[in-house]
């Protein structure tokens, strides 16, 4: 019989413009994670999965797993590897760790994600981001930096569903305001609708607060079995109930939806994850969506099934994403305010859902028992969903 996987602990370093090297950030995040579970020691960890996509370009470091293992003081004996799925790297790492511990191929796996994106010359990171997408067919058109792509997406959503700029701004306001109490978030300023509406233009219709910032940072979590976890903690256990990762295209010309605001791959991933977790969209009490841009969250609430297709703008604009609303989302600030060091994001999201389900989140959702995290990556190429619960799937 397969074992049940749980997320035992998690932590992150301060995210933002960091005066630090990539491996410094991993060490800080590992410390934060062990601080979260003081009974667990580095020697107890037998597996390491490192999620980092830009180490090779921005830190001139590939084969990162052994480098990070040594720096954070773990000595893996079951798995020591890196995964590179850009923005979904952390979530992918958790899925892989889940499979390993369920199968008995590892017992206690550290999933560590991080990126150092600020380089001594700023032009270099913008240039390197051209490698985020298919180099020869999209990057070469200057599509590596996502704002133009998501500006097109926002235009199509506005065109087909009548979504307004004010509804986009409502997402930024909600997420920024959650982050005001999060000491490790990159942005910790309260944001008003007026400020969001009057912000400088990035790529129309997206303005400054519609776009997540460039971020240095790392996050670490621990995945193990429920039986092992009970030896280390009395906290409620948080099970990984179901996951899915869907990739139907990479080159933008082959986008799978009818238009850019129609995210077929999100819907397939959600359906699979819900089925595996034996829950439905209406069971989700708290969620972490991939709000790399405000428009992403608007489309995600639709294609994750929290509201009808086309009604995401109204859903977000009417406070359904806030505490007291239908599904509180990005209660730690999300990508818009926490920042987005690609490989670290899925781990931050999982850690926040773990805290919500254990009743110890900063912005606690009452009686949260089922939570969801969602990442997209590339030029909206890949969608990754994890569903966590206080009980295992029976």
């Amino acid at each position, binding site marked *: 019989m397969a074992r049940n996987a749980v997320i035992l602990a998690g932590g992150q370093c301060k995210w933002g413009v960091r005066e630090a090297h990539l491996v410094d950030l991993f060490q800080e995040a590992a410390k934060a994670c062990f601080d979260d579970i003081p009974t667990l020691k580095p020697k107890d960890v037998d597996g390491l999965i490192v999620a980092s996509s830009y180490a090779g*370009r921005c830190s001139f470091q590939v084969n990162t797993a052994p480098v990070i293992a040594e720096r954070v003081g773990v000595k893996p004996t079951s798995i020591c590897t890196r995964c590179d799925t850009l923005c979904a790297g952390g979530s992918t790492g958790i899925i892989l760790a889940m499979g390993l511990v369920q199968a008995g191929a590892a017992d206690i796996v550290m999933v560590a994600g991080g990126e150092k994106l600020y380089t001594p010359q700023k*032009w270099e990171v*913008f*240039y390197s*981001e*051209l490698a985020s997408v*298919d*180099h*020869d*067919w*999209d*990057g*070469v*058109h*200057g*599509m*590596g*930096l996502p*704002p*133009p*792509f998501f*500006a*097109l997406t926002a*235009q*199509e959503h506005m*065109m087909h569903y009548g979504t307004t700029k004010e509804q986009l701004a409502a997402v930024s306001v909600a997420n920024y305001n959650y982050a005001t109490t999060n000491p490790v978030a990159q942005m910790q300023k309260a944001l008003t609708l007026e400020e969001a509406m009057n912000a400088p*233009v*990035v*790529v*129309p219709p997206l303005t400054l607060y519609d776009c997540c910032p460039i971020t240095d940072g790392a996050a670490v979590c621990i995945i193990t079995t429920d039986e092992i976890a009970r030896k280390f903690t009395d906290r409620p256990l948080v099970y990984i109930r179901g996951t899915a990762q869907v990739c139907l295209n990479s*080159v*933008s*010309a*082959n*986008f799978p939806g009818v*238009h*850019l605001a129609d995210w077929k791959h999100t819907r397939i991933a959600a359906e699979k994850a819900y089925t595996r977790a034996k829950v439905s969209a209406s069971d989700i009490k708290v969620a972490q969506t991939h709000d790399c841009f405000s428009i992403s969250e608007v489309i995600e609430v639709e294609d994750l099934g929290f509201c009808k297709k086309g009604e995401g703008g109204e859903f977000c604009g009417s406070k359904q994403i806030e505490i007291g609303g239908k599904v509180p989302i990005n209660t730690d600030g999300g990508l818009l305010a926490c920042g987005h060091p690609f490989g670290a994001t899925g781990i931050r999201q999982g850690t926040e859902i773990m805290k919500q389900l254990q009743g110890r989140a900063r912005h606690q959702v009452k009686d949260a028992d089922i939570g969801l995290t969602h990442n997209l990556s590339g030029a909206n190429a890949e969608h990754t969903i994890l569903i966590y619960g206080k009980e295992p799937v029976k």
Partner: protein
Amino acid sequence: MAVLGIPILEDLYPSTMDMWPLEAKEFNRNWMFYENLKQGRLTTTKCKDCGLVSYPPRVICPECYSENLEYIDLPKKGKVIVFSEEVKGVPLGFQSPLIHAVIDLGVDPARRVLSRITNCAAGTLQRGDEVQLAVFPVPALPIDKGKLGTIMSERVFFAFEPVKK
């Protein structure tokens, strides 16, 4: 002030910093796409066994895994579905305004090709505008041929530009 950059790279070509495809036959089995582009043709591959047209071109059919492929022409004119204009934060190698558009070329699978729009002033493009293929030269690829020395392989790339009304 010290010389900026990395002195050991003087007169050397690092392909890891090249924003253009390595189009030459020596490094890319899709080299015919670029040869056709030099003739002003936008092409892609069609599988002669199962009939699947793929964009971008392939060296093996992703449907039936046949290697029996041929290059076919795609339309050189299309219509703008949506477009975006990036004025600030344009990455190195591109000029402001950096304009992108989803273009309908009117044939499958190229009904929604995302391309850069060139030769177009900010604020002038409109949805529904007709655009046409624009081929332009890009820096040549220096290829080390051993005793023969380094040859310079000419390269081009493409964008779309407004059709003059």
